[in-house]
């Protein structure tokens, strides 16, 4: 097994085609 205690085990998915249209970095700076 894993030698040490676990904080998180995750599957982090990015569904790019569903990003909001304003998500092109060229338009604005993210706050």
């Amino acid at each position, binding site marked *: 097994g894993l030698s040490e205690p676990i904080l998180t085990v995750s599957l982090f998915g*990015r569904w790019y085609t569903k990003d909001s249209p304003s998500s092109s970095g060229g338009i604005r700076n993210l706050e």
Partner: protein
Amino acid sequence: LDTFIAAVYEHPVLRPKATETPVSRDDALLHMNKNIDILERAIQQAAAQGAQIIVTPEDALYGWKFTRETIFPYLEDIQDPRVAWIPCQDPHRFGDTPVQARLSCLAKNNSIYVLANIGDKKPCNSHKSTCPPNGYYQYNTNVVYDAKGQLVARYHKYNLYSEPQFDAPENPELVTFNTAFGKFGIFTCFDILFHDPAVTLVKDLQVDTILFPTAWINVLPLLTAIEFHSAWAMGMRVNLLAANIHHVQQNMTGSGIYAPDSPKIFHYDMKTSEGKLLLWELNSHPRNSPDYPAAVDWSAYATTIKPFPVQKNTFSGFMSRDEFNFTELFENAGNLSVCHKDLCCHLSYRMLRKGNEVYVLGAFTGLHGRRRREYWQVCTMLKCKTTNVTTCGQPVETALTRFDVFSLSGTFRTKYVFPEVLLTKVKLSPGKFEVLKDGRLVNKN
């Protein structure tokens, strides 16, 4: 070359005093040279240990707290690499560029490729609506000098994050360069969360290794630098050289050298103000290596099994601003499922000893946080801050519970999934887990 020695340097940046008004060009140069003095020692050490390339962090010469006006004295006009220029040899060919000349000489004098992050300024026609008031575009820029000091790559950061001092280029730049030890791609910090240029460089331009300077603020439980960057490298099946700023007051630490099969070496230090140089020998062409991971169908397993019992007491909880559905791991071992809209997450697990800690399985699919720009799909098993389930999703840095089995999967609708495993005291677990071709993230053996 089948392999090469890569280096990344976590730099404790010397930040200038905050000012309302721009400092003189001389003061800006004085400050940048203090930081370059520190980078120089790291570059010399890396070269002495045989490294062929070194990545230094984003904002490493001047920090990040600027306005458009106060950053201006730190900027230089950075040429397109097609001009075939060695600033170290020809420092006055393109005006006042002492920073570029010095960085080029560091690469040339140490015979090592050097990536640095500096500021570019480009004059624009003030009649053009997008031209800023001072008549210059100002870019957060990565430059790469080869072992002869020639400028071989220039990349303008596309996905800016709270950087009013910089402009973004109109379109994402796909910047690559070839070497005897593979094809390299470049992007910066926040770019890693988006498709362009990050995914396109790997998917379409088939780079072998990504150079990734960053000034990354750690956010537990999902977006801590070493955790997310190593997971991105595994999910994208590419080498990733991540050099982070070291600034513990703002939770900035976490650099590493990550390969498609597992993290190779990483650094996380919230205790000291020291910099850190990491080196590792990597495959120049990971796709050709025997341990190159197979492509994963991330939803194959989760969409074919009969869902495990969904417990009655599924509850919702927030992770920063995202509302997850959670279900608690009540027993020492079991099979659990939890869903959020069309995303269902499945977990099989066995704890070695269930301490007085609460773990939950969580699912989230939707536009993330306040920004609501990025669409996330997340399956996570995590330790709650306390035994009170209202604390599930809050940052936690230590745990006691060990697992001798876990298998996590989800009905993902995207093929871009990044597998994360974070151990107590914010450590990675190289080689202790793997992703199966059917999308299960499992502990090894």
